[in-house]
Structure formats: C-alpha cells, structure tokens
C-alpha cells in the first residue's frame, strides 16, 4: 500500500504534470533582488542605533570597556536589577561582566539552570553575531555558549555588541548562518497592539531592550 507521503507527492506531480524525473530548473534570476547599498561603517552604526531607538530600545556607546561598570550600575538602578544571567562567550568573559555584576551586588544565575529559574532573572546579557542597520535588527546564533533563553525569559535584555557586526542586508547574514540549527532576529523589545490597537511594549518576550556598543 502506498504511504500518505507517496500518495501526496503523486497528487502534486499529477496536478503539475510532472514526474519523478522531470527536469528541475533553478530559481529564475529575475526572482533575485540585490542587497541594499550602504553608507560607510560609521553611518551604518548610527543607522542601527537610530532604528533600535525608534522601536523603543535604548542604545549606548561605550568608548572603553572601563566604562562598563558605570553603565551596568546605571542599568541596575534604572531597571531595578537583582538577578542576572548571561551568555558564556569568551567575548563577555573577557569584558569581565560577571565579575562587575557580582561586585555591584547583582546575583548571577547560570544560563543552564531550569527555564523557571532563568525566567526569574531581571536581566539577560547576550552579545549579537550580526546586525541589520536598515531595520535595527540583531542576529543571535545559538550554541552551548549562547543559550536561547537568555535573550527571551528575563525581563530586560542587554546585548553588548562589537562595532564590526553590521551587515548590509539579509543576503550577507544568511550566507553566514544558514547552516545553523537555530538563530533568531531580534528587532526591538517584545510588543503587541492586540488590544484596541494600542501599542504595548513587553508581552511575552523582554519588556526592555538595551544595546551597548563597545
């Protein structure tokens, strides 16, 4: 007896008047659109931050990693941070984020703790692998060092990014990440307009998004 799969594919082929050996042309070249053209790197970084701000995100440029402690202290006060979790990347380790947070009295929670425990964190700190200035989008990959829940469950999401991450368009990003098992585009804080079309920030994802460039 034919499986559902084979029956279904046979139906599709019959409807399209194709068979298993029908030639398979590539995607027509007219269906491709070239990437957007970009300004210089500095203009792209400004655009990225401007777009994130438009969506209700908060951005900050830190000229030196030494300023990180002050910035984290500000954030702790403004967002009432008591517990935090973070990516375990070498980049964040080299910046000494965990040590700074501990020194200013923030409790550190392992990102490998249960979802319920991570969800109790006020702050989740990640990096970002790429950024799309046109839309204000951060691209976050997933790995053992970059657990997916850090940017999702805590109330506040802080992404500490490097100046070289902007890419011109989706094309360049997909070229680099398309074989990943998971990646996510984050564009501003979580939002809805489901009740009387009133924009409300912070539904299921983080209520606040902070992006700092070092």
């Amino acid at each position: 007896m034919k499986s559902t799969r084979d029956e279904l594919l046979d139906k599709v082929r019959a409807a399209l008047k194709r068979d298993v050996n029908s030639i398979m042309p590539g995607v027509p070249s007219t269906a491709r659109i070239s990437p957007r053209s970009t300004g210089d790197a500095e203009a792209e970084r400004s655009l990225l931050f401007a777009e994130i701000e438009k969506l209700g995100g908060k951005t900050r440029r830190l000229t030196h990693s030494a300023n990180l402690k002050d910035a984290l202290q500000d954030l702790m006060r403004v967002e009432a941070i008591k517990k935090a979790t973070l990516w375990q990347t070498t980049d964040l380790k080299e910046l000494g984020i965990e040590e700074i947070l501990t020194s200013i009295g923030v409790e550190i929670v392992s990102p490998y703790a249960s979802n319920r425990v991570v969800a109790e964190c006020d702050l989740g700190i990640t990096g970002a692998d790429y950024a799309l200035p046109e839309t204000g989008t951060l691209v976050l990959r997933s790995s053992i060092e970059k657990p997916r829940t850090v940017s999702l469950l805590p109330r506040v999401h802080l992404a500490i990014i490097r100046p070289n991450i902007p890419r011109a368009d989706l094309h360049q990003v997909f070229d680099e990440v398309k074989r990943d098992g998971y990646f996510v585009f984050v564009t501003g804080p979580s939002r809805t307009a489901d009740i009387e079309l009133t924009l409300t920030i912070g539904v299921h994802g983080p209520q606040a998004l902070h992006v700092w460039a070092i």
Partner: protein
Amino acid sequence: MSNIPTHIDFRSNVQHVPPHMPPAVRKATTKFLGNRADVVNQLGTDRWEMLRQAGHEIRLHAINHLDHYLTQLEEQVTRAGGQVHWARDATEARSIVLQIAREHHIKRVVKAKSMATEEIDLNHALQEAGIQALETDLGEYIVQLAGEMPSHIIVPAVHLTKEDIADLFHQKLGVDAAPEPTALTAIAHTKLREEFLSADMGVSGANFMVAETGTIVLVTNEGNGRMCSTLPPVHVAIAGIDKVVPDMASLTVLLKLLARSATGQKISTYTSFITGPRRVDGENGPQEFHLILLDNGRTRILQDESARETLLCIRCGACLNVCPVYNQVGGHAYGWVYSGPIGAILSPQLLGTSVAADLPFASSLCGACGDICPVKIPIPKILLHLRHRVVEGDAVEPATTSPIIQAGVQAGAMALGTPWLYQLGSQLLRLVEKPLQRGDWLPNLPPPANRWTMVRPFPAFNADFRTWWERRVGKPRTNKRLRNLALAVIAIEALLFVGWLLLRKRKR
C-alpha cells in the same frame, strides 16, 4: 463540536454583524494601510515593485515545482534530526498530533498563532483528548477565552473593546483589571508565563519552510512563537504544503514583503529560524521536533490552473485591509478562519464551492486586493473563475474551454491561416447555404445552430472577403496591412461565433 463549517451563508452572516464591528475593523485596517504606505514610500515605489515581482516569481516557482521542494525539505529536516509527517486532511493531521501527544504523555500544550492549526480545528481535538490547549498570541488568547473566532488575521480580537476584555478577564480568570491595554496585557503576560513554563508541548505553524536547509521560519511580535518553540521539550510545527520556499535567498525578498504588508513594520520583532531540534543540551530548545505537512485540499487547488496562484499567499492580510466589503462586515461574516478577499478564494477551494458558494460573490471586484497583494495573486480573476465554478459545478479540470471548442478554434485557425483552404471554405459555404437561403437571410438552420434561428434569422453568407472587397472598392490593391487587419477581424468574429454556438449547445 467542530469549528470546520459545512455551510457558509455569507448573506445571512452579514445580517448579524454587530454595529460596533465595522468601525473597530476600519480602525485597524486604516492604521495598517497607513503604516504600510509609510514603509513602502521609505523604500521607494520602484524597489517595492521589484520586490513584489520577485516575490511573485519565487512563490510561483516554488508552487510549480512543489514536489521537488517538498522532497528536499523532508530530506533536510530529517537530516537535522527532525521528524516529518504527511497529512492528507484535517482528520489525519489531528490524529498525528494526538499520537505524538500520547507517546509523550502530554498534558499541556501552548500554541503560537497559526492559521493551519485553526484550519484543522486542533484545539477541540486536543481538549477532547483531555489535553489543555492554550492560544498564546494575546489576541488569539482573548478570542479563545471569549469562545469566538478571530475577526482579523493579524489582530484577532480587534472587534472587542478594552472594557469587553476587562469583563472577560474578570469572568474567566477571576481577576479585576482596569480596562487599560497595559494592565490587561500584564495580566495575560503573568497568566501565560506560567503556562509557557509548565507546558510539555509547543505547537506552531510556519510562515515559511526553507527546502534548501530544512528550516522553518516563525514571525511574531510578542515573542510567543519563540516561547512555544524554545521552552517545551517537544515542538510540533504544522504547515500547509504550500508554505515551502526554495532557499534562504528567497527570504531576502519574502521577509521584506511580509511585515511591510501586514502591519507596516519593516520587520517583525522576532523572526526565528528553526532547523530540527536542539543540537546540544546546553543551548536550550526542544529535544524533539516534528513537522506536519498538511494537504487538506491544497493539491486540489494545484490541479486548477486558473486558481493555482491562490497558493502563493503569504498570509499578510493586506487584501483584508484594503477590501471595501471586508471593511463593512469584518472577519466573522466569512464563516471560517480565512476572511477577506483571500478567504473568499481560499475557503471555497478548501471546503468546496458547495459549502462556501456565497464567498466568491462577496466582492465588488474593485481590484484593490490584487493591486496590494505583495506576491501579486490575481485575486479578482480567481474570484471570477470561482463564480464560474459555483455555477457550473466543482469540476476542477481546466474547465474554461471544452475539447469541442478547442477543436473548433484550432480548425478555424487552420482554415483562416491557409489561403487555399480559406477560399475553398468560402466557396463551399456558399454552396451549402444555397438550399436554406431566403433572400439575404437563413431563416432555419440545422441543429445545433437552430438555437439561433428559433429566435431570429441568420444573415446569409453572400461572399468571401476578397469578393466582398472587390465589389465595394474594386480590385484589391496589395495593401498587406489592411488585408491582415480585415482578416484578423473576420477571424475574431468567426471564433466568437463558433464559441457562441458551442456554448449554447452545452448549456442546453
């Protein structure tokens, strides 16, 4: 009780549209259209039109080679450690989900917004099996609590006021809340956060499925899609077979079209790209990933070449926003999960035109839906075609030209295109009509042409074109353009006549 309709009476539904519905709906559609116009202008109309054309071509290419891309998708999802299931119809899809749920002793399911799961009425099936199934998109959650259907594809609860929602939360959740969007959203957030954390299965749809990599793409603003596909140990995605796209490069076009057309955002807040289950334990994400590929009438749409482009749809809702009929009646009048112009062409094809016979007529054919569609679906043309199918029956073969008409047209074309045959024909015609001719008229013709002469006489064929021309203006000069023009006119007349005769015969 099933939500899959057995008869949709649009005319009667329209009589029961509550008076607050049209203004609420218009508020949403006006806002979305305004936002859309802004982002399209920002991009430039030329680039937007290039994107639309590219989007059309990508989707058409995918649909025209669906067998290839579905096979490739299955291979890639399987390679990534996911499990692929195929479902002929709603019943099969539901039983696949229930089977997975039984194997894992699932008690609580959280659901991201998905048209496919509403189409198969999954929630009822889960509830009947004793499994809690909760919608987590705020609008869908409200509509589910109210026991209603979505009234707009993007903002499902647009017909309810904040006061309605505060009442609803008071009755169903036992909480008192100020009728303010922020306070109400906070209540839903707290309630649903607990559900996300305790759910043992997440169910989602897929905005796109990428054949090249085996990736499903989920687009949301609230983050509920990420929650459903990250937290529970089992993730089941259900999508129509039409949702497949060739490669990631296709998304450089389609993602740009989707958010701009839907809400007027440049991109939605979260776009997740999911290829199989998690690869290592520490990264979080589900241990198991299932993809259910749903036919449920789509292969039937594929057979009808005149309506096939219905399957290009990326579910943005722009055609609803721009439709004068939808703006007057809202989503409920369309009787099922798909509303507006896309519902008017999709529902009759998925459910059968006998179930949804009214819907192709629920349009003024103003053409705005076709003009706004980001993937250029010729919705007005398909509406007309479906009206034809409603009247003529649901035979989905390319029914527009019968073999007899086709043969007649071909014979006519050959005769007109071959000078000696044309001349011979005109001589023969004059011979044949002789016994029937009375003066300049043929009062009686043999069947099937007697349908004409029963009502009025038929003009006699007095001369072929050349003779007629000679009589009128003397010896023909070799004016080729004029001759070709005249021949073309005659050819068209002849074709119309043959077609008319045969149609008369078929009707009888």
